[in-house]
């Protein structure tokens, strides 16, 4: 009967699989599974500021002209083997490497190595409104617009095949730092040409081609991203054959997968005590420059009123938030930037917790009976806020004491960000992780007027005085003067309270003991280039991977 057949087939399979056990071992030893907290919105980091997307794309698929290296975060060569800045700071010339190859995939086969055209294409797409690719995928390049690179760069000149010169409107302190961020990646101009011919321009952001250590093999929305090693990488090729991002938004789900050995590395683990107890697991942390904050939508009543915002800032008990949500592992935020930044102003006072004062401020603002508000809390764990829902609950009970009723609202992460950008919210819990060590990376993208226009400043707060101050800080070379300007900016923030900074936290990650190599970095996204697994036999692996790649080429199409 059918049942019997089924059972016997099943048994047969078990027997066969037992014989083949060795093969599986080598497969898992040559691959790393990373449990990520969310899906990327796109595969082009130019289009986003979301850390989840950066993690999945920048360092894996792409390279930048220059990069940060070492513990001191010194700018170092990447695609550009060297660069030169004129004395007036207005001309920056990059000399490119000649041996950089793009990914070869099922959908694209490069015929040439990287040259100046690719660099110019990548930046022109972002900066030039008339560029044929500018409006593909919406025409929003939040990071570049926020830091004002489109105003700063007025021309990009091709000197020869491997030399590119940027002409700047004025000297700018953060220019090189901005080019070294995860957003300023180099795309392939040749691929863009091919897509134009195929009339499939938007594929450039969904089926990415870059120069990075890994190439995209497969993406299933909300489920997994599969990368293969880029064998012709211009540096030593990555040590692992296959890198899989297992998208697991649930905190418990990620921990379960780690404990059940279904993931090698896990983003933002919870229950640190539990992980530390296991000998074959390790927990690591990196001091990241970030800030978690409570923000107001200035366009929505009653938060257009400064007094209401101040009242709420007095009513929130940050100490308990730090104890409960961050479990005492974070530092209280008094302003946007952490104490470790050179621009931190020691005169800034700690935010006082004073519900009485908050009440009288509310009375003064004409809300003596309180009001009802919506608080949007992030659905997933971020380095700056490990559990926004719990934080929202605590804030809910804090604000109840001054007669404000809070409704907590949450959406799936990419929907959440999208709706925030459209300004549907009243107040929100969010945060920011720095992309480079320059303090400007906090002040401009979070709260400037230009960021309010692109929607990355979700408070929509736009203050001329503040904007002028942070712009002045960018144009001066005198570090003391800069510090003074930033102190001024922070004083404005303390008075206007568009956001209530809550904490500066570490970024955590857990992994199985057999995974070697650094993944976390103090800035920007994670990097799997240096990762390998214990007991890896390089020679044997080389032969097998060649064999395998032949097989894979026959599988065309990407999901």
């Amino acid at each position: 009967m059918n049942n019997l057949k089924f059972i016997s087939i099943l048994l047969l399979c078990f027997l066969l699989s037992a014989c083949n056990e060795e093969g599986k071992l080598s497969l898992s030893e040559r691959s790393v599974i990373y449990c990520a907290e969310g899906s990327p919105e796109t595969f082009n980091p130019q289009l986003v500021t979301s850390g989840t997307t950066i993690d999945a794309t920048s360092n894996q698929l792409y390279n930048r002209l220059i990069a940060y290296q070492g513990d001191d975060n010194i700018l170092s060569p990447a695609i550009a083997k060297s660069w030169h800045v004129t004395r007036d700071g207005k001309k920056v010339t990059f000399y490119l490497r000649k041996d950089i190859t793009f990914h070869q995939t099922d959908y694209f086969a490069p015929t040439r190595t990287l040259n100046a055209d690719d660099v110019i294409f990548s930046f022109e797409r972002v900066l030039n409104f008339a560029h044929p690719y500018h409006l593909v995928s919406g025409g929003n390049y939040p990071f570049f617009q926020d830091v004002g690179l489109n105003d700063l760069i007025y021309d990009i000149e091709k000197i020869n095949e491997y030399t590119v010169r940027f002409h700047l409107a004025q000297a700018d302190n953060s220019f090189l730092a901005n080019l070294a961020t995860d957003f300023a990646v180099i795309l392939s101009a040749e691929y863009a040409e091919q897509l134009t011919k195929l009339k499939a321009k938007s594929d450039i952001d969904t089926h990415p081609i870059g120069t990075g250590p890994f190439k995209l093999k497969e993406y299933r929305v909300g489920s997994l991203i599969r990368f293969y090693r880029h064998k012709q990488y211009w540096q030593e090729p990555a040590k692992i054959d296959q890198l899989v991002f297992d998208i697991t938004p649930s905190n418990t789900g990620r921990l379960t997968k780690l404990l059940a050995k279904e993931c090698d590395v896990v983003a933002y683990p919870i229950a640190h005590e539990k992980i530390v107890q296991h000998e074959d697991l390790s927990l690591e942390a990196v001091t990241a420059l970030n800030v978690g904050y409570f923000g107001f939508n200035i366009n929505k009543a009653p938060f257009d009123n400064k007094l209401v915002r101040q009242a709420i800032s007095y009513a929130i008990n940050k100490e308990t938030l730090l104890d409960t949500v961050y479990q005492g592992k974070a530092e209280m935020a008094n302003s946007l930037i952490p104490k470790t930044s050179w621009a931190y102003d020691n005169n800034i006072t700690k935010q006082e917790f004073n519900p009485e004062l908050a009440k009288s401020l509310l009375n003064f603002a004409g809300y003596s009976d309180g009001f009802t508000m919506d608080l949007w809390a992030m659905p997933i764990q971020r380095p700056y806020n490990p559990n926004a829902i719990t934080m929202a609950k605590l804030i809910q009970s804090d604000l109840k004491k001054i007669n404000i009723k809070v409704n907590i609202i949450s959406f799936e992460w990419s929907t959440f960000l999208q709706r925030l950008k459209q300004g549907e919210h009243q107040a929100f819990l969010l945060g920011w992780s720095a992309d480079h060590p320059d303090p400007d990376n906090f002040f401009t993208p979070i709260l400037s007027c230009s960021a309010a226009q692109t929607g990355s400043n979700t408070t929509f707060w736009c203050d001329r005085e503040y904007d002028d101050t942070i712009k002045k800080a960018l144009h001066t070379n005198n570090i003391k003067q800069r510090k003074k300007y930033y102190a001024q900016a922070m004083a404005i923030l303390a008075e206007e309270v568009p956001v209530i900074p809550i904490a500066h936290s570490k970024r955590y990650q857990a992994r199985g003991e057999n995974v070697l190599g650094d993944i976390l970095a103090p800035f920007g996204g994670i990097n799997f280039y240096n990762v390998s697994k214990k007991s890896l036999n390089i020679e044997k692996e080389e032969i097998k991977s060649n064999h395998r790649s032949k097989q894979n080429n026959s599988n065309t199409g990407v999901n």
Partner: protein
Amino acid sequence: MLIFTLRRLSLFFFTMLLLTLLSFSLNFLFPGETIINLTGAINATPSQLIEINEAYQTHRNIFWQYITYLKHIANGDLGLSMASQSSISTEIVTLLPATIELSLVALYIAMLVGIPLGFIAAIKHSKLTDNLILSISMLGYSIPVFWLGLLAILTFSISLGWFPSAGQISLLFEIKPVTGIQFIDILLSDSPYKWQAFSDATAHIILPACVIAVAPTTIFIRLARTSMIEVLDTSYIRAASAKGLTFQQIIFRHAIRNSLIKIIRHVGLQFANLITIAMVTEVIFSWPGIGRWLIESIYQRDYTAIESGLLVLSCFIFVVHILTDFIYAALNPLARGNKYGAR
């Protein structure tokens, strides 16, 4: 048989009418613009909107709108998901087989365990074994499935490490989805790790399938028990024992076959139940099926996906229901007569 078929067919059309009407009216009930809810085209430019309005005939009266809606469904066009902006019918085609696969395995386990246990209970009627089986079965259908799933993960994945806790297959194996049913896809694939993939997929399906199977198992126990008791009470069994057949002969030759027929009738109903339990279990075991997808769509207020997902899922359940009715009627001629006799 003809009249029976006609009756079922009329029921089928009636249901389809009801379900499509319901899902069509949902577009008006959900917040937001009807046409957007219908198509999911949230980012449409004005010119695209005109096109969409034309395609769905919104300028004509509601009856014609409904007819055009039916035409779109018949062409497999269920609109775009508001959240991911991808075609819903493609998403459903990839997800539904995973749910079916899981439910079928669970149904199989439930029948394999439940029916023999029910028979044993019936044979040992009113004895300790019977009471024991009945008590366990009551515990089984009282336990909340999401809780059971969590306990199962904690015990079998974390503490014992026997089975994986999430997903359909280890992500290391690259299996191209062809039919959507993982086991068939593995067999079709040309991966060098085919057989490991197969055993890995088997290990992945055991835990969720068992969790889903618990509640239906208890129902099968009861069904099998009642039906066996009834059969044992009939005169032909008494006649058989009068003839001098041994107890074993009676059970295996006569009783089991006749009681099985009665159970088959309920399999269809149980399948619907199973799919619902599977929806919840999929969430816990991160199974890439339609249940998890539907629940996520509800979170994201993705109205187009909710509406189409519900339509497809309820149609599917109903089709299974009618199919089992046919199988039952084919196996048991008595059933055909009863259906259109006295009502």
